[in-house]
């Protein structure tokens, strides 16, 4: 399996869950290195730091990041650059409650 094929599989299979996703205390959604897909829908995206060989790791907004050494918490203030992705109306949908 090529790296790209593996990435596709992670992406497509990872999106499907049997149980309803829960948002962990420390999730990729809260990390500055998470890049959410804007072509898709289901909280899917990739990590811009962690790689397998050359390819980035596919992660989801609710991926548990509690053991991740690269976790870099996003600035949750409303700034000109980061507010959009986690708009206040959107946060409750993802259980991203305000601190």
């Amino acid at each position, binding site marked *: 399996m*090529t790296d*790209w*094929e593996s*990435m*596709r599989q992670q*992406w*497509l299979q990872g*999106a*499907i*869950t*049997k149980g*309803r*996703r829960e948002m962990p205390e420390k999730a990729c959604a809260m990390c500055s290195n998470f*890049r*959410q*897909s*804007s*072509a*898709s*829908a*289901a*909280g*899917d*995206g*990739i990590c*811009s*730091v962690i*790689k397998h060989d*050359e*390819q*980035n790791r596919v992660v989801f907004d609710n991926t548990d990041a509690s053991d991740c050494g690269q976790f870099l918490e996003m600035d949750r203030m*409303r700034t*000109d*650059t*980061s*507010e*959009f*992705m986690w*708009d*206040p*109306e*959107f946060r*409750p*949908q*993802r*259980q991203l409650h305000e601190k």
Partner: protein
Amino acid sequence: MSAVEMRSIEDIEKSGQWWWWAEHKRSQRLDYLRKAIWKKGAKGSGYNPGVKLDLERALLFTDAFKANEADSLRMRYAKALANVFDNITIFIQDNAQIMGYLGSRPHTIIWHPEILFLLNEDLYNDRTVIPDPEDENLAIIRELCDYWNPICTGAKVFNLVPPEEIVKLLTGVIGWGLPIARIGYATKQWDYMFRLGLEGIIAEIDAQMAEAEEHIYNKVPEPDELRYYEKLDVWQSMKVILEAVIRWARRYSRLARIIAEDFETDPKRKEELLRIAEVCEKVPGKPPEHLQESLQFDHFIQIACRYEACEGAWPCRPDYWHGPFYDKDVNIEGTITHEEAIDLTGEFLIRCYEVGWFWLMLARDTLQGITGTWVWTLGGVNEDGTDACNDMTDCMLEAARMVRVANPTFAFRYHPAVRMKTMRQVFECIRQGLGYPSMRNDPVLITNAMHWHKHPLNEARRWVHQACMSPCPDTKLGCQPFRMANATIIAAKAVEYALFDGYDNTLQMQFGPHTGDASKFASYEELHDAWYTQLKWMMDTLVKLTNGGRYMAEHLDPRPLLSGLYERCVEEGVDSSHPSERGNSWVTFFAWMETGDSLAAVKKLVFEDKKYTMPQLVEALQANWEGFEEMRMDFVRAPKWGNDDDYVDQVHVRCHQDVAKHSWEIKDPTGNPWPPLPENIAAYVTNATKVWALPNGRRLGDTLYDGGCSPGAGMDKKGPTAVLRSVAKIDHIGDVRATLLNQRLSPQQLAGEKGFNVWYSYIKTWADLGIDHVQFNMVDNETLKAAQKEPEKYPELIVRIAGYSAHFVDLNKKTQDTIIARHVQELGG
């Protein structure tokens, strides 16, 4: 009585608070219907409180799909949809005269589980729209997800293309949208439907099937006649679903009659309900003969098609097709008054505004406040070139000011012979702050349609907006059945990739082709060539996906209902996605105008003035300009588009010409080219986090330019004429399919008769310069800031985003700020 209600109309007009003016002016019926709307457009990216998922459509569709396993996929889809039309709960709203609703209750949004597993999972995990009892409904949704996820269209399409390309698409940094036929824009052929009605079309299908049976049932078929087996299946599936649509409409007829005869006590309303019963019994089975019938016919078809698919645009030309019925009823026979026509038309707009479904996150983000780019086309010319404006044009414009919905919006086809009374109506809509109609230059766009897609003149004159911008004839061979939005590139990424050898800085991975280490570029031409290579790669990647999706759609994702509404499909016995129309493809270019400004800044500051070197520039960009503020300001101050400065404008023009050249090198499934169409919807905000720092001085996260040929916010410093002169340097026929120009004008300056004359002079200049589009915001900053502070007081304040309008209060703060930041142009009086 509130303070607002006590104010006189004159005071309200003087203050420019037109949303309150509308509330005073509209009829009681329209006021009720307007206030009874459940908004389905997302606010920010979430649905409004109270909006809930409707499971009826998904369950009825799935039940019938499962029950007909022996049938072909298209027949299973037809029977599944027919089961929805036969059984979904219907209702009639108080005061309503136009029937047909997407969903079984007014506050609901439907779900198409057969399209995309990612959408299904998004829904399952949504915390706001799951209806009560939540646990019970979640279990139902999970069961539907498990059934559809492995067999939905998305699962099939994603396996069609190389994994590298689908992964790159899914990251969302090079493009937008998905190559799925059920998420597309379908231009419809109204002359066919209005001429025959669905019963007439069914009669044509019967005749075709009888002839086919002669070929294959009554003798041993020749090899080339075997294709009739498949055609028969196509025709049968069309017939199944067209008959179901007629039955669905007649369910409304029965319901209206039952309410009228058994429950309604108000004699006037009883009469209305009986009229509704007559109308719904007749259309869309038979051709319409009166205005209420034609509007009802139109609405039934549009809703029915959205039960079949997520049609994200609403191509139509309502004044052209409904105008004759208005004329007959109001002007000739006098069966209804102008005011009654306004009521019907206003409700027609409201019914459209209420349409919504559970929609992809990407669409909720980039189409904030609305559910689709529903741009209705008005004005223009007839097939013989005469002015097509009529009293229905004026009626639509007047009704829009009364109901002030953000969707649909209008685009007006301007030509030199437009009658003056209609121009005044157009101006009133703009002056009253609707943000629409946008102005389209009809002679330019007719020629453009002939240039790119070889439509004959009379058919090119029948063009409608296929989505926000692209002109598409609504004729038998001109209608494009769907345009998949994923042929959309984030063009500024090509500049980023050219400067970093194809490396994506936001994702931290190699994305584009290797075009060399930019710090070693010794000439501007090397940079330009690298940019062109990257841009061509982006266009090719997305076009490949779209061509594959389009070609396979008739097998993977057939649309029997839409197919049955096209004359060519009925004649040929093919699915709507079979590429036998003349073609109308285009590649949308988001974030395009940063390209020329960026390249021009490098050309000047690095290769001509030699103030900086390429290694310095690459280092500064790599650092997102952090620590290089003085240098960044030099790049911000470099010549910018929109000031009639030939130095930078010619860089832009060359880029346009290069792209146009490549457009002819790549073909769509009909054999036609893929011309560029620069515009942005709200993606100029959402893509801010996708595009790395650029040499125009932009940092990661700064919003992008808002239009397709608009200058950057605050970069146009020499007034509106200079903007027009810059924009006119682009060849609006040969270099683009269309392009989008945003302008802000001062409401104070355009008050009264003088204001109209000033604006009209501007429009004539704009048209003479051969520019294809312009749209206006005419709301002052004081009002916008007040609405930010107290949104509950400004529910109907509308602004133009880029290709669509939205209620200002439905936008997120950042998008609101970009509207406020746009430069207000002062027109010469």
